[in-house]
């Protein structure tokens, strides 16, 4: 039995925890404003908002309900389009109508929810971010022009306002007033939460679900009757901290949390920008670092980045613990050095030293909301112009997320020169074994990897490289 608030209604349900929130909303609650367009996180027609109590405040985020297990909303507030509707159109809705932001209308509730969610999750409003908040929503009819204008128009209501609160949103009719009571109601509700879920010791033989953004794409049907263990709320598995000169990221930390982490922003100022190429906002709100690693997709973006940081995995089965280098974790296509009962408690890597450099490159068929054809990351330390440490990863060019060991060996203790870079790129392409698939032919991927290796150096050391010489 779980309890949560769906819009303004408290729900207690015995439905299987593995069904998707989308099915629960549409089939059991008959709220049909939330649509099903793809069931794999790629269209946004099913977008909802999830509010969770953090320090007695409700923090909202958008999510794809088609990939969200019902069990994961225990003690939370779920908002669908019906929970935003009021007697009159909200400013967001009105702007969409006025600006021609809807045609067939099938995508429209998803856009309304995403955009309304933007106001609910940001204290400072700006039009570009508002448009960005809809990057997980696809529309086939409108060409987005009216939708973008509507986003700009609805932000204009907050011009000059530094911080906006839920009260402001209720006053301006963006939200119905029941939102004001939600914090109190969630506090009551969370008292009912099943305590066995959090922390000490891992329950046996259950399927582990983190963000579900891989699991529910791959096999949602078989998850319905499974005994599932939800880790996305397990506090011990979350958070980003510094311990012993290492940055440690909990296994259930989401991509959004990584993007917004002050620690990571301090050491990796470009990371936030890099991660904008990861899925969409609702996907990033759910996708976790542990899931990305264990899913073992050769093009996983976080895995690619972590490989170049020479990360260590902290595995546990609740009783014993073990550490292993990420680069040693992958044994073959989707085979891992991991026992069935082990989970990734955390990932850690050394704080970048002084005079160190990091760069991430990703090329995909479609620039946004697409997985990479090839991706690559590089971490490099210099001392007196000499490469004293370097790690390079390559994704999409082998059955596993690849760590380029020979390229590293070659680069160590060398000066950065055109010759060296060019040779390194050549060595990199000899370490890979790409296959031809929907993301590109083997030949193209080989060519692309070489370009990306060169791109790392061109981006990081423009002054050291004489392109003329390199060619």
């Amino acid at each position, binding site marked *: 039995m779980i309890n949560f608030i769906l819009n303004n209604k408290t729900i207690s349900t015995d439905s299987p925890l593995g069904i998707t929130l989308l099915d629960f909303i549409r089939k059991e609650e008959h709220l*049909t*404003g*939330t*649509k*099903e*367009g*793809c*069931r794999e996180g*790629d*269209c946004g027609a099913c977008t909802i908002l999830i509010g969770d109590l953090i320090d007695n405040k409700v923090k909202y985020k958008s999510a794809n309900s088609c990939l969200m297990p019902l069990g994961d909303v225990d003690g939370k507030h779920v908002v669908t*389009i019906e929970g935003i*509707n009021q007697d009159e159109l909200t400013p967001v809705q009105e702007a*969409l*109508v*006025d600006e*021609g*932001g809807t*045609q*067939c*209308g*099938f*995508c*429209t*509730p998803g856009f*309304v929810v995403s955009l309304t969610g933007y106001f609910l999750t940001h204290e400072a409003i700006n039009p570009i971010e508002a448009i960005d908040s809809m*990057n997980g929503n*696809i*529309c*086939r*009819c*409108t*060409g*987005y*022009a*009216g939708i*973008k204008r509507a986003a700009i128009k609805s932000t204009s209501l907050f011009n000059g306002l530094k911080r906006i609160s839920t009260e402001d949103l209720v006053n301006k009719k963006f939200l119905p007033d029941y939102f004001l009571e939600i914090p109190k109601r969630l506090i009551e509700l969370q008292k009912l939460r099943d305590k066995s879920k959090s922390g000490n010791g891992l329950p046996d033989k259950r399927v582990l679900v983190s963000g579900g953004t891989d699991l529910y794409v791959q096999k949602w*049907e078989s998850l*319905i009757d499974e005994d599932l263990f939800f880790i996305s709320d397990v506090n011990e598995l979350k958070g980003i901290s510094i311990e012993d000169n290492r940055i440690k990221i909990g296994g259930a930390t989401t991509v959004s949390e990584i993007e917004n982490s002050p620690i990571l922003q301090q050491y990796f100022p470009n990371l936030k920008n890099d991660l904008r190429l990861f899925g969409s906002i609702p996907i990033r709100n759910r996708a976790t670092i542990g899931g990305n690693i264990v899913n073992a997709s050769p093009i996983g973006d976080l895995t690619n980045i972590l490989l170049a940081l020479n990360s260590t995995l902290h595995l546990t089965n609740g009783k014993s613990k073990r550490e292993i280098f990420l680069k040693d974790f992958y044994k073959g296509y989707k085979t891992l050095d991991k026992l069935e009962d082990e989970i990734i408690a955390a990932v850690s890597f050394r704080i970048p030293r002084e005079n160190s450099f990091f760069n991430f490159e990703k090329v995909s*068929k479609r*620039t*946004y909301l697409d*997985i990479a054809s090839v991706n690559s990351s590089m971490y490099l330390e210099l001392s007196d112009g000499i490469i004293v440490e370097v790690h390079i990863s390559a994704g999409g060019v082998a059955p596993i997320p690849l760590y380029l060991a020979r390229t590293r060996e070659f680069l160590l203790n060398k000066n950065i020169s055109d010759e060296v870079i*060019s040779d390194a790129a*050549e060595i990199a*392409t*000899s370490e890979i074994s790409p296959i*031809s698939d*929907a*993301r*590109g*032919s*083997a030949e*193209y991927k080989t*060519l692309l990897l*070489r*370009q990306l290796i*060169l791109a790392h150096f061109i981006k990081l050391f423009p002054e050291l490289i004489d*392109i003329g010489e*390199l*060619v």
Partner: protein
Amino acid sequence: MKQNFSIVGKPVIREDGYEKVTGQAKFADDYKFLNQLYGVMVRVPAAHALIKSIDYSALKNLQSKIFIFDSNDVPGEKKIGLIKRDQPVFCYDKIVTPGDVVAMLVGEDEDELRLLARKVKIEFEQLPVLSDPTKALDKNAPLIHPEFGTNLIVHYPLRKGDIEKGFAKSESILEETYTTPHVEHAYLEPECVTAIPLEGNKGIRILGSIQNPFSARKMVALALNWPLTKVRIEQAELGGSFGGKDDIMCVLSARAAIAALKTNRPVKIKYTREESILESYKRHPYIMHYKVGYNRDGKIKAMKIDILADGGAYASMTPYVTWRTVVQATGPYEIENVWTDVRGVYTNNPYTGAMRGFGSPQPIFAQESIMDEIAIRLEMTPDEIRGINGYHAGSITASGQKLEKHDVNLLSVIGTAVDKTNFRSRWIENKNKNIIKIPTHKIKNKPSISSLILKKDEFIEPSNLLRKGIGLAASFRGCSLGAEGIDAAASYISVQPDGSVYLLCGLAENGQGMRTTYCIIASEVLGISPENIFYLEHETKIIPDSGPTVASRSTIMGGASVKIAAETIRERLENLLYLKWNIPPHENLIFKNNFVYSESDSQKKISFPELCSLAYGQAINLAALGWYPGPKVHWDEVHGQGPAYFTYVYGCQVAEVTVNIGTGEVYVDKVTAVHDPGRVINLLGAQGQVYGGVTQGAGYALWEEVDKHEGFVRELNFDQYLIPTSKEIGEIVPIFLEGEDIYGPWGGKSLGEPTLELTAAAINNAIRNAVGERFYNLPINLEEVLLKRKLRPEDLTRGSS
């Protein structure tokens, strides 16, 4: 002829906007019926196979009650089809493409049915698969439908002038081949339909995501062997269609109807995205050979065109789609000598049918690319060469039709587009700058990986990585169905005693906003606000068959019929007022702002509701049916000559792109779309058509492709089938140049399809301008740009290289 409109041409918000932004609009899957069952399909994992036997024994002794339906349960025609009856409701002797369905399981739990469907054992014998359309007409090619004795679905010749003489007189000849891929409509709402048996022998009600209710009615009646009257098709709110929810919905409606009648319970069929992409039809892939003879002065003397369209497993709309192609294949250019052959053939690939553009985006991609190539060879600018050859008033088309009775605005739309974008100087500037070639590698059959590495001298400077390009494309397009079909539309209007109005047109709302357009037209005639109009749900039982909602005919045909209906009412009201006010007939009465008054005497004034109440009191008929039959058109099948369409629209788009020649990525920075759609009825709606059409066209240019491997589709969901997101396309600028026309409501014509058909060609020309190389195959994705090959394991038929 300047008219003073009260509402026509202004931006009007959608009449259904409220329902849509609140999520209250009800799409097909949002309806739920008491005792409703689900239908789930059983398929064969093959592209071409004989069905030996179907074994349902795994479904015996289940706890839940499962009904099984296959071809034996079809009471009427086993095969249906809107043009050719070649598509089985359920396949019985063989399957001809992987989407084919041999049976349907019906029961209460959809998820359970999906698992059970996999347990049905089908014994089948694989037949040779025909996937390459160029082999379809070979002597030893496997026959997809042996009963026809050939894989040829249709062949349209067009002969004008003397082609051989034309080439002999040409100073230069250019020959090129272009190809385009299968494209998925990717309407955001997957197919869904529910059939509800009606009590008391009243027939069946079918409610679904149906683009063309009258087509579905015809097909269901055929499959049931029932009169049309007993099949009631109701359109739910349609979550996008773009031509795509026609044939597929006919078949699904028939399946649902058969099951509903047998079980006597409502049966819903709802497709997942995967099933939708697997079974639904696509845009035709074309292979297009063009041979063009031209002179140094830029005049094109002769054009020989040979086009092969992959029709896939079923004929569907292939005969109509390819007919539009043959009419428009030369592009909007006056050419003395033309020899065109367009063929559509069967293969085991997914079947192909109607999709926004309908046989025009493909030839435009080829012909507009070639026009630029000729311009470049003659050191002309793209607009110059089009200026020399483009249609003007009185021009004779390839099919021998004289363009008259409307503004032939081709050169004006091109001129406007060129001026607004400062096209010429930018085109020349880019062309001169972008002389460094993209490093490409010849890929041999068995490439050794190391040979693909860029040589040192092929490395590109970062500052040179991003190249700017600008390109244009122009077209003419025949409005409505033309000589390809029966062309007429009906509208029903019923004014109530309080002045509120019911309105319904026989053409269906597909999301494009035509209900709003119709409300505007009726409002304009009656001088009332669109809010006073209540648009009725589309149902086949209450409105005459108006043909399909295709060919951008909603405004020109449906709109004209609404205008006629509204004018009929207006005339009756006017007659009443002439009597009442005792003024001579034909004195001008003004209908405006919910009032009616005499132009000469403003004392004579009455509110619209009062007038209606008065009329009602005098037993005046306030309901009318507007009927608009399309003007006569004609086609000579043997020579491909005749006035194909009764009128045409013109458009020109300019695309601006940035190409990353390091990775092959293309960014669309801006598209300026200049169109003459005739009279613009709703400015907001018209602009929406442009934004949407251009964005779809950009997807066609750069990403969209359904790759069929031995008939099997790989891109079954949106993770692989990539359509543009909100971040992909830069600014889109719609500009309308309203030409006069005697047809349509106040000369209102077509816009929906013209907006899409030009974009891919314009983008290709812009890429050419940016990188100095021509691309011959859509989509122009990363790998095409970088390596001149497709992101696919093996190269199928390709264009020039």
